[in-house]
């Protein structure tokens, strides 16, 4: 008996009881759709994270004031922030593993241009920052060390700021007022997108760190900065850089041995990798939960096939009387189960793809439906059909012809 005619017989048998076949498939449909949606959501999230990691840059260390404790960050002795621009300069000069170091002094302020105003983050930094972040200008130029030394009132603006303040106007050379202080726009930064914590990185203005310290925000003590970010020369240099920076800063801050650091060095790359890892675990977890529903669907198929074998005992007897072997009967019911599972699986794939398209659309991610996941779910649903169809089919194949013919 060839496979094609067996499949035809199976489809015929299933179409007799459309409602029942449909309900039986529903389990598989939901299971497969859930698996596909979960895998897509998971890999979409992961892709998003990797993109953000790329946007941050690689081999990065972040130095924060205050000691690290098990509870997170707390202020060091006297609770005074302790990092200065000179610390950043010293790191860049004295730690060979550190390629660049840039101080950051951020603050929020109202920015006015003409009759437009916009509240955004103003960050004081040095030109190295743009090397570290690998963040070029789209037009104009990045401010120079001379601007930093002279505390000039120049600004680099992000795309979001440009859109909100200038509209279609060219911002280059225009004067904006930050806290009423006029700054000249000398460059527009290229688009950077979202940060790993969901901030719009283009909603920002960068100015020389000295200007921020002396003219815009003021500082508790001279040269104070909030963060120093460092780019190591290579991924392998990260560990040494971390150690040497700590040693250098302890020395510069006159911390006696035995006292804890008044700063914290964080490995951004490691943190990102951890985030990526947890996203991966999350998607595996979601996928496994979804596959449980696939198994439940399989049990539904088994249940219906058992009912079907009992209902069709007489048919089995007739087929056996005219020469069907046990194997023929086994194939007939097995293929019926597989056809149920595969049709259900295909519908599930379609629904899953539509579902993940919706989810990624609303989450603002790119669609990440892997053909692998589709192939896998298809194969998996066929396997579910075989696995859960086998027992009822075997039961049918072992029936004795006389018993079946006598069955009412």
């Amino acid at each position, binding site marked *: 008996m060839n496979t094609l005619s067996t499949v035809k017989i199976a489809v015929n048998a299933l179409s007799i009881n459309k409602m029942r076949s449909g309900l039986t498939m529903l389990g598989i449909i939901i299971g497969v759709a859930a698996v596909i949606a979960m895998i897509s959501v998971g890999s979409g999230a992961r892709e998003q994270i990797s993109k953000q990691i790329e946007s941050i840059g690689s081999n990065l260390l972040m130095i924060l004031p205050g000691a690290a404790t098990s509870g997170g960050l707390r202020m060091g002795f006297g609770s005074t922030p302790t990092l200065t621009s000179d610390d950043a300069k010293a790191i860049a000069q004295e730690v060979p593993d550190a390629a660049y170091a840039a101080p950051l002094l951020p603050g929020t302020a109202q920015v006015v241009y003409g009759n437009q105003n916009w509240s955004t983050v103003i960050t004081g930094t040095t030109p190295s920052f743009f090397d570290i972040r690998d963040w070029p200008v789209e037009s104009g130029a990045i401010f120079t060390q001379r601007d930093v030394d002279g505390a000039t009132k120049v600004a680099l603006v992000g795309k979001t700021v440009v859109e909100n303040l200038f509209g279609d106007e060219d911002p280059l050379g225009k004067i904006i007022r930050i806290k009423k202080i006029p700054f000249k726009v000398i460059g527009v930064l290229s688009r950077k997108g979202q940060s790993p914590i969901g901030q719009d990185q283009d909603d920002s203005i960068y100015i020389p760190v000295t200007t921020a310290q002396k003219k815009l925000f003021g500082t508790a003590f001279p040269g104070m900065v909030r963060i120093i970010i460092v780019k190591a020369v290579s991924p392998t240099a990260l560990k040494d850089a971390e150690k040497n920076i700590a040693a250098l800063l302890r020395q510069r801050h006159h911390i006696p041995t035995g006292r804890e650091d008044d700063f914290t060095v964080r490995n951004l790359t490691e943190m990102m990798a951890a985030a990526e890892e947890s996203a991966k675990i999350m998607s595996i977890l979601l996928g496994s939960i979804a596959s449980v529903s696939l198994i439940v669907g399989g049990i539904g198929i088994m249940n219906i096939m058992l009912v079907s074998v009992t209902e069709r005992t007489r048919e089995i007897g*007739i*087929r056996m009387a*005219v*020469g069907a072997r046990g*194997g023929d009967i086994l194939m007939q019911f097995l293929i019926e189960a597989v056809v149920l599972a595969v049709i259900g699986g295909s519908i599930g794939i379609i629904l899953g793809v539509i579902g993940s398209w919706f989810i990624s659309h609303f989450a603002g991610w790119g669609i990440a439906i892997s053909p692998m996941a589709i192939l896998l779910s298809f194969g998996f649903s066929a396997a579910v059909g075989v696995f859960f169809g086998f027992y009822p089919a075997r039961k049918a194949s072992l029936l004795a012809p*006389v018993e079946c013919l006598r069955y009412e």
Partner: protein
Amino acid sequence: MSPLIEVENLVKIYRMGNVDFHAVRGVSLAIDEGEFVAVMGASGSGKSTFMNIIGCLDKPTAGNYLLDGQEVASLSKDKLAGIRNKKIGFVFQSFNLLQRMSALQNVELPLLYNGSPVKDRKIRALAALKSVGLEDRAYHRPSQLSGGQQQRVAIARALINNPALILADEPTGNLDSQASAELMTLFTKLNKENGITIVMVTHESDIAAYADRHVYFKDGKVVKDE
């Protein structure tokens, strides 16, 4: 020439709980090719049990059964299925057609299980239907046919693989006298013109009269053979 069917000391015991029920107790019988045999006897005398065994639908508890010179009792289930497919055609009292299929598909059914080429099946099934005078009912469902027509579809199905033997267990049991007479005419024709051996269980003596030989069962034994 050896007989088509040769049974010796055939015994069938049904076990029900702790009690053994002897449905067939030591039947010995030989039926030659081309015979038309009527099996008769009271209800419960073991006729159907005997028919099921010689039809390879059931296995005897003891005794020998040679079909066409081949020992059958020791064959595997799959071999028995093959024998049912090629050598035996069944006609049942309740027709035993698949309700969801057309007459044509019902007749094709045995061809599904012996690897007949797909394109041959329809031609052969139509020819078989024609031989029982039902070619114009090929696409009717059993429920759209009269009892006599259904039984003729069953006969067409029994004939499709050109079997040596037709086993009919009360084939006229559900038919009126007109349809019964037509069926018997068909059986006689198959027996006389095509040389097919027919073994038929019946309660009615006027039906049995079409047969050449009458075998009487009583309490699981053959009591008369004429």
